[in-house]
C-alpha cells in the first residue's frame, strides 16, 4: 500500500537526487575546467540543466504519487501543472 509517508519520501528523494546530481556534475565541471580539460564546461552545463529539470521531475512524481494514492483531483491538478510547464518550456 502506497501511503502518505512513502509519497513524501518519493518527493524528497526526487528533489534531493536532482540537487546532488547537479552539485556533483557542477563540481566535476569546475574541477576539470580548472585542470584545463575541454569536458569541464559541458559537465557544468549538464549540472545546471539537471538542476533546472529537478522541479519538473518533482511534478512528474506528484502525478504518479497521487495516482497511486487514488487522489484523482490532485493527480489531475499535478498533470495540469506539468502540461502548462511543458508548454511554457517548449514554446517559450
Amino acid at each position, binding site marked *: 500500500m502506497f501511503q502518505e509517508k512513502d*509519497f*513524501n*519520501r518519493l*518527493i*524528497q528523494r526526487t*528533489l*534531493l537526487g*536532482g*540537487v546532488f546530481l*547537479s*552539485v556533483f556534475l*557542477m563540481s566535476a*565541471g*569546475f574541477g576539470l*575546467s580548472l585542470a584545463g580539460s575541454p569536458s569541464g*564546461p559541458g559537465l*557544468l*552545463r549538464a*549540472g*545546471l*540543466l539537471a*538542476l*533546472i*529539470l*529537478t*522541479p*519538473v521531475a*518533482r*511534478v512528474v512524481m*506528484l502525478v504518479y504519487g497521487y495516482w497511486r494514492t487514488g*487522489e484523482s*483531483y*490532485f493527480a489531475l*491538478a*499535478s498533470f*495540469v*501543472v506539468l502540461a*502548462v*510547464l511543458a*508548454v*511554457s*518550456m517548449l514554446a*517559450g
Partner: protein
Amino acid sequence: MPELTPLISLALLGFGAAIGLLGSVLGVGGGIFMVPFLVLVFGVPIHQAVAASLVAIVATSSAVAAVNVERGLANIRLGIALEVTTALGSVAGALLANRLSGAAVQLLFGLTLLPVSVLMFLKGRRALRHGPAASGPRAAKSSAFDSAFYDPAAGGHTNYEVRNMAPASGVSFFAGSLSGLLGIGGGVVQVPVMNLLCGVPMKAAAATSNFIIGVSAAASAFVYFRRGLVPMELTGVIVTGVLLGSFLGIYVLYKARSEKLQIIFSALTLLVGLKMLFGAI
C-alpha cells in the same frame, strides 16, 4: 560579464548564500534583489542576470522543499492546488505582457503590498504578545488541505485548517501573472495569501511557497538555458552559495518562531512594495 577572479567568486558565493538563507527562511526566491545586484555591482547584462537569478530560485526551492516535505512543513496538497492557478496566471501574464504598461502594473503591485505589509506586521505582533500556539496532537482533518507539523519553537504540534481556497486561488493567478509581467517569482504574494487569507502558520506558508516557486522559475530558466543566456560559471558559483545558504536557512526556519518570521516578512514586503512604487514613478 565580470571575469571570475577569486575575490569576485568569493563575493558571489557570499551573496548567493545570503539570498539562499533569505529565500529558505521567508519562502521567497530573492530575484527582486539578485537581479539589480548582479547588474549594478557586477555589470552582468540584464538577461544573464535574470537567467542566473531564476536558476538560483530553482536551487533554493528544490533543496529546501526536499527537507520541508519530510518534516511536514511544506503542505503539498495546498502547494499543488495553488501551483495550478499560478501556472495558468503566468501564461496569462506572458500573453498580456505587451499590452499592459509595465509601470502601471508595478504601481498597482506596489500599492497592494503596502497594506499587506501592515497586516502581516500586526498579525505577527499580536501573536508574539499572546505567545506561541502549539495545539497538541493532530486533530481530525476537515478538508484535504488541512495539515500539521511539529514546531520546536512552539514546543509541540501545530495543527491548522486551510480556509478561503477559492479567493486564494484567484490571488495566486494574479501572483502567477506578475511573474509573467514583472519577472518576479511570486513568493512575496504567495506567502501573505497563505498566511493572511488561508490561515496557514508563517513557517508552513514559507515552506509551501518555496515548494511552489521552483516550478514557475524552472519553466522560465529552461527557456533562458535553451537560448544560451545562462552564464554557466557565474551561475554555478552563485548556485553553490545559494545551496549553502539554503541548508543553513532550513535549520533557522525549523527553530524560529512563526511570529518573528511574520514581522521580518512584513519588512521585506514593505521594502519590495516601495521598490516597486519608486520603480513605477
